[in-house]
């Protein structure tokens, strides 16, 4: 008899059961992530996870990896500091749509522009779960939220398009229904050099699904199954989501661009000649 879940090696099982609601997709994303981390070929002590604030921000506390729960919106600058102090680390930012694209939106575009060598995983559940279901930058127009009782009047971000335009070298989107593909995408993103971005569409039945008559977590998963299409290589301009619930999934971008540190070292070596020693961290 095998009692231990094989993924528990990378989980802080002493802190479980976790705080997430029944049917919340966050646990499923973590389930995929630990499989990606275990299969990416890096020893666990070389992978560091940084989360911001919110329901997704809790991920860092449940992983048995070096992990940091930072301030609201700031996991990317924190991760940038970690990466530059110790470039041998693989730094993964794991946070939600509100934390990464509202409070921390500016950090996201600049880390992508610089091609900072890190992976950003955004669990997009279209709302602020922890604080009561407010509108976020990804809430579809027309969706009901605690701050939009008559329906959201704003247009949402199309995250893959934003990441693509800002310069990310790897961009993919999957839902929590697509567990195998999501696991593979996170593994590829971890292995990719440069700024990689994975959006995971995930149910928040408690504060988004319920208000928008989408049912419980299982119903929302059924919705993903019915309403998603896979279009690898799709033009990211065409993958925006709206209230219809249609979701285009796939790997949209996979390209090469020198990373921040590569560009930095190349330029300084060219300017300063043989006296310049490549910057390889302070540790």
């Amino acid at each position, binding site marked *: 008899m095998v009692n231990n879940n094989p993924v528990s090696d990378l989980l802080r099982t002493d802190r479980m059961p976790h705080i997430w609601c*029944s*049917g919340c997709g966050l*646990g499923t994303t973590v*389930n995929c992530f630990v499989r990606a981390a275990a299969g990416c070929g890096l020893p666990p002590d070389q992978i560091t996870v940084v989360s911001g604030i919110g329901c997704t921000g809790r991920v860092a506390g449940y992983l048995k990896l070096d992990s940091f729960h930072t301030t609201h919106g700031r996991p990317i600058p924190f991760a940038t500091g970690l990466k530059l102090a110790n470039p041998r680390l693989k730094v993964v930012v794991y946070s939600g749509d509100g934390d990464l694209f509202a409070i921390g939106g500016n950090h996201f575009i600049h880390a992508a522009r610089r091609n900072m060598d890190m992976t950003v995983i955004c669990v997009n559940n279209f709302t602020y779960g922890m604080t009561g279901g407010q509108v976020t930058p990804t809430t579809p127009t027309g969706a009901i939220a605690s701050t939009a009782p008559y329906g959201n009047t704003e247009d949402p971000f199309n995250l893959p398009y934003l990441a693509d335009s800002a310069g990310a070298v790897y961009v993919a989107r999957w839902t929590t229904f697509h567990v195998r593909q999501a696991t593979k995408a996170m593994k590829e993103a971890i292995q990719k050099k440069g700024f990689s971005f994975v959006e995971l569409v995930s149910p928040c039945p408690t504060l988004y699904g319920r208000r928008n008559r989408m049912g419980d977590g*299982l119903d929302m*998963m059924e919705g993903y199954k019915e309403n998603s299409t896979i279009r690898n290589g799709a033009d990211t301009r065409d993958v925006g989501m709206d209230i219809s619930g249609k979701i285009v999934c796939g790997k949209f971008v996979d390209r090469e661009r020198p990373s921040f540190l590569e560009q930095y070292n190349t330029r300084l070596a060219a300017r300063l000649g043989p006296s310049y020693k490549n910057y390889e961290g302070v540790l």
Partner: protein
Amino acid sequence: MVTINPDMCKGCGICIRFCPAGVLEFSDEFNSKGYHPPRAVRPEACTGCDLCGIYCPDFAIFGILLKTVA
């Protein structure tokens, strides 16, 4: 072979719905938190694919290939 840790379960039903072999059903029993965990009603049909294990948001269930165990 599928292993269930009933006390970790929050009764979402996702493993039951997406098991490709129809192995699982809700149990009539309550767990310590008051949820109905799944139980294996057709254990012989389990392929060990571990899809339930990847889907479960609460790490409460997993499948394993018996060959791997032995």
